[in-house]
């Protein structure tokens, strides 16, 4: 088995597996993508903090201390505290009804749940103004009875809920579809009640996906601007949320104050992203279903 003598020598080329691109292309793609991402995403983030701290940390913190700023922060937290749990409850109920039962019109209903994704926040706000505003029959009665919805906190909650409506359901539906119904059926045959089955079997199985959905929902709820701008009336100290305050301060050329408020929200976004990445890292198996579709 002696090989034939080498008659033609093939110039030595570095071997490249058939499923990869040439090194020069790989390198330039990585560099190009990183450069783009730095310009598009990281630069704005850095800008927020740079402008907030332009006159020092003390000035930035001080600008958040006045009454209107404090009220905006409180209001934003209140709005999130009401709308996120409600949307989580909706998400769980919808996912249970959709994944554990087969019924007519399911596909259509899922489309309706997704509807807020494709409606402009401003149009969403407009819808609530038309429904509950002072020029509508319901609105006039609400104002007369002293419980207005538009230009008041309830309107902001409703608009926020509309914008973040699909978030939790969208995370839970694929996960629960993948998990099927066998475990719940097993629990029932073992004599567990419906609630017990849900609390001890279903909930532990979906908790990370639920947390993931709540996280995204919360980030959007605290940051919503367009819909809230329309329904809130922008009353300083009463219906001005943090994003609305940012706009008002910015338009008054109070740059440090505006960017300090923005930095606070940016910090929230960074915390959200960190938690989200940690969840994806630790609980990839449960979240994988949602990422596939």
């Amino acid at each position, binding site marked *: 088995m002696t090989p034939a003598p080498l008659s033609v020598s093939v110039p030595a080329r570095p071997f490249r597996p058939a499923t990869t691109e040439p090194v020069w292309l790989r390198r330039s793609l990585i560099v190009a*993508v990183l450069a783009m991402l730095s310009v*598009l995403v990281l630069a704005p*983030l850095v800008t927020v903090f740079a402008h907030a701290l332009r006159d020092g940390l003390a000035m930035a913190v001080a600008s958040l201390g006045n009454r209107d700023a404090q009220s905006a922060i409180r209001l934003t937290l209140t709005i999130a505290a009401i709308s996120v749990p409600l949307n989580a409850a909706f998400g769980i109920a919808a996912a249970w009804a959709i994944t554990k039962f087969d*019924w007519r019109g399911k596909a259509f209903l899922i489309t309706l749940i997704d509807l807020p994704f494709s409606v402009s926040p401003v149009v969403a706000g407009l819808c609530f103004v038309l429904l509950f505003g002072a020029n509508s029959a319901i609105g006039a009665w609400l104002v007369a009875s002293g419980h207005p919805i538009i230009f008041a906190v309830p309107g902001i909650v*409703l608009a926020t809920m509309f914008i973040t409506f699909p978030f939790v359901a969208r995370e839970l539906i694929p996960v629960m579809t993948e998990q099927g119904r066998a475990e719940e*059926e097993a629990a*029932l045959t073992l004599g567990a009640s419906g609630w017990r089955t849900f609390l001890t079997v279903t909930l532990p199985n979906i908790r990370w996906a639920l947390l993931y959905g709540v996280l995204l929902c919360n980030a959007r709820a605290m940051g919503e601007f*367009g819909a809230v701008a329309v329904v809130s009336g922008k009353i300083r100290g009463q219906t001005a949320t943090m994003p609305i305050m940012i706009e008002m301060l910015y338009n008054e050329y109070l740059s440090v104050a505006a960017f300090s408020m923005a930095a606070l929200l940016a910090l929230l976004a960074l915390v959200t992203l960190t938690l989200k990445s940690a969840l994806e890292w630790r609980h990839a198996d449960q979240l994988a279903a949602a990422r596939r579709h």
Partner: protein
Amino acid sequence: MPYARRGLLKAPSPLPGFGLSFGIMLTMLSLIVLLPIGTLLLRGADMGLAEVWRIVNTERVWAALGLSFRAALLAALFNLVFGLALAWVLVRYEFPGKRLIDAAVDLPFALPTAVAGIALTALYAPNGAFGSVLLDAFGVKVAYTQLGIWIALVFVGLPFVVRTVQPVIEEIDREVEEASATLGASRARTFGHVILPMLTPALLTGFALSLARSVGEYGSVIFIAGNIPMKTEIAPLLIVIRLEEFDYNGAIAIALAMLSISFCMLLAINLIQIWSRRRMGAA
């Protein structure tokens, strides 16, 4: 309970809670989504098609609608290409800091739009870090022009294509790429004729999501746009202006125009998607 709802259920189920969960779902969906949107549609119907058309068919409204959809389309197109490259790099290549970059892709999603808006404006304003360089070196003005609107929309639409395409790239069967190579195809040809067709449905989904988000975007745009009527005034802003003038019919008409154009675009994308899925021979 299941038996009580047999009319709706396709098959009886041993699991409990259908009535309760379905009830909560339908009630909340109706109150939060269907009732408000229904009100808008009803008010539009009250006005009549002719009146809606009369309001929409003015120069300023057409300019705003045209700008909103054109800028969103161009931004979504950019994100289609850039998002594909980004997703490819994140799945296929190894480099330091990859996890950080992966997390950064979601920043536009997590960062409130008003924050993004003022940050982009500060960056691209004529005296901003990027804006001054672009103005001095190339004479290009970004903030307060349509270019600025485009950049804001690229920012908000960025995560969608990446996040829909990424899992599909992860699941590509390497054997298929190898098969193409053994048949003599260059890497470029393999990408164009084998990989790209496999990614098309996901790319279209990402494109549609990015487009839908950009068309209605308000918060991140109004700061950088300059808001000059006929030039840099987007449709959502015009709705807000009409509302501030208490011109409800004006606002309704523009909102309905936006909804119908969005609906037609998403329908078109959906049809292309169904067609491309069918071409894949849905197994």
